[in-house]
């Protein structure tokens, strides 16, 4: 086996456990490759994609597939980079000092590790999900850059250095609400979850609803992709909404023939008043919906 020209050592066999998808999660080949790149490089995996394409689920299934524990950090607009490392609970300490509770003299008992701190100090390798990083302030990704790169940080109050025992597998999701800084992107492995095509969607539906009647499923998919094709829609229905819709249709026992003529339980698919009204009026006017996939014009498949 070779050693590379730049002198870094190359293991004869892959030194990491590869991810190959799980039975409940349909991952495309490109996604599996991206996950394995991130694992091999020990770099964060940045996952982007339309809402409802299973970005958050991915972390759970990567953890499951690799047999590693999962920790999550759900980002909010008020999230700060330091929250992920540790929080020094000054108020608690002040309170304890006032009433003479707890071990006030030991700062360490008032340092609470955040998600990053927790996965760094864990004994075994962990999977960390940083969910919806674009929700936070523009500078947020830059603020965690060094910690994610070097996998270490210092607790200022005590001077203790926290160094990752085992570099965690970090999965970051983004809904594209904000541009992420270049310096941050450079350090990530990137994957974009494209919207599933009809064949992939069949597989995905089969995982959630293994026993749907075939004619119903065909009608459902046809209607769904037709809806997604409508340019007037402000928010196009996503995979998770399709799954919900099928649940509703199956529970109500909707006849496939009825699906051909109308869109029952539209509320499960369209979450916007104007969108619902647009489709309703289209159907009321006797607008034609397609009878076969071949009639869906510009559909990307």
């Amino acid at each position, binding site marked *: 086996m*070779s050693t*590379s*020209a*730049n002198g870094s050592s190359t293991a004869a066999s892959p030194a990491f456990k590869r991810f190959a998808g799980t039975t409940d999660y349909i991952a495309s080949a490109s996604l599996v*490759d991206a996950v394995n790149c991130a694992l*091999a490089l020990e770099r964060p995996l940045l996952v*982007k994609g339309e809402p409802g394409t299973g970005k958050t689920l991915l972390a759970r299934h990567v953890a499951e597939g690799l047999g590693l524990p999962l920790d999550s950090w759900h980002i909010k607009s008020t999230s700060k980079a330091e929250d992920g490392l540790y929080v020094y609970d000054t108020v608690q300490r002040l309170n304890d000092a006032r009433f003479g509770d707890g071990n006030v003299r030991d700062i360490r008992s008032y340092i609470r590790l955040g998600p990053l701190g927790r996965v760094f100090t864990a004994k075994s390798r962990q999977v960390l999900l940083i969910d919806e990083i674009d929700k936070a302030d523009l500078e947020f990704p830059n603020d965690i850059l060094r910690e994610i790169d070097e996998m270490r940080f210092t607790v200022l109050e005590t001077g203790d250095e926290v160094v990752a025992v085992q570099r965690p597998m970090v999965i970051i999701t983004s809904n594209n609400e904000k541009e992420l800084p270049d310096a941050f*992107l450079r350090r990530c492995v990137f994957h974009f979850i494209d919207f599933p095509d009809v064949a992939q969607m069949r597989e995905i539906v089969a995982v959630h609803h293994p026993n749907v009647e075939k004619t119903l499923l065909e009608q459902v998919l046809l209607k769904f992709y037709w809806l997604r094709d409508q340019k007037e829609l402000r928010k196009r229905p996503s995979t998770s909404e399709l799954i919900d819709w099928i649940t509703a249709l199956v529970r109500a026992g909707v006849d496939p023939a009825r699906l051909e003529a109308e869109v029952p339980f539209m509320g499960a698919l369209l979450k916007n008043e104007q969108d619902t009204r647009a489709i309703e009026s289209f159907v009321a006017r006797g607008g034609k919906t397609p009878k076969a996939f071949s009639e869906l014009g510009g559909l990307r498949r």
Partner: protein
Amino acid sequence: MVFLDFFFALREAGLKVTLQEWRMLLTCLEKGLHDSNIKGFYHVARACLVKSEADFDTFDLVFARYFEGIEGAIELPPELLEWLADPHPMEELSEELRRALEHLDIDELMRRFRETMAEQTERHDGGSRWVGTGGRSPFGHGGHHPTGIRVGGPGGGGMAMKVMEDRSFADYRTDVTLDVRNVKLALRRLRQLTRSDGPIELDIDETIDKTCREAGEIELVFRPKRKNDVRLLLLMDVGGTMDPYFEPVSRLLSALHEERGLRDFKAYYFHNCVYERVFETAQLMRKQSIATSDLMRTYGERWKLMIVGDAAMHPSELSSSRGNINPRLETETSGLVWLDRLEHHFDRSVWLNPDDVQQWAMSGTCRTISSLFPMYPLTVDGIEEGVKALVGARAETARPVLAPGSAGL
């Protein structure tokens, strides 16, 4: 390193691939993550080198051009890379490759490979393949080269090439597509924060400071909230040559209407060129119109002006004093003078043109107008550039100033 050319080809195509990312890719290849096939290599390369779905299409195009015809020879690129990184690991190579290597030393192989590659880019249109089946090169299989190397065989590599050739990510290009969400992202920069007036908030720093100065006597300090101060006036060309662009323009309009950050936003319509009246609706009814001179009185110079139009018209419509295409709205002043007045009246103005950038130079009126207004394409990238020109640091460019009396130009 042969693949380095691919790296430069990507950079040349405008992708901001860095050396750090390139080394990430090499590490992945060393670890064999591509599973020695072109599809795996494509996935790994994309995951390491491209960081936005907007760039996927460009990546696909470069990749397809660079590795065209490699489908049939699916085991080539990773192994080639390994030879080049290190000439020893021959036991890694297939039987056929090793036999071939006995005839050609590595330098010779490299040289020929490079040559073929250079040839390939030049003869791209001709469709002759450099590595693959039925080619004339020594690389690939099923070719006509007598001492050539048979490389690879049938495999499942076709998918990746198909993905590239289908250009399935073309819809995500930000320099072409325009949806309301993209536009909203581009418009986010339309911000100038000021504390001029409006509701007030508690200024904590100042309060603490004051309180300390007062020796602990609490003194609250208030200040106006930071607020976006951008006021935007949008003028849109409608009808005629603008009809094909109805969708992108309406998406820009709806994104602007939804943009709550703006202090004020107003939109008017015109046809072909701005003359003495602009209209409140796209139907251009005189009843619902405002004189352009009133427009300038109503909207002060602190407003920012954004004009959307293809700037393509008959030269006389722009420069003749009787140029208005609608005879009932005959005007005394030429459109060019009106445009010049608008440009001078407003502090900052931009022109967004939905036509292809290549077409701009072909229209004389478009050239004239683009010398008056900074012109950007009506794409996500173009809007972002335009927004920067409206609120960003001022780039001092000298614009030709029309003399006030040049009405009959």
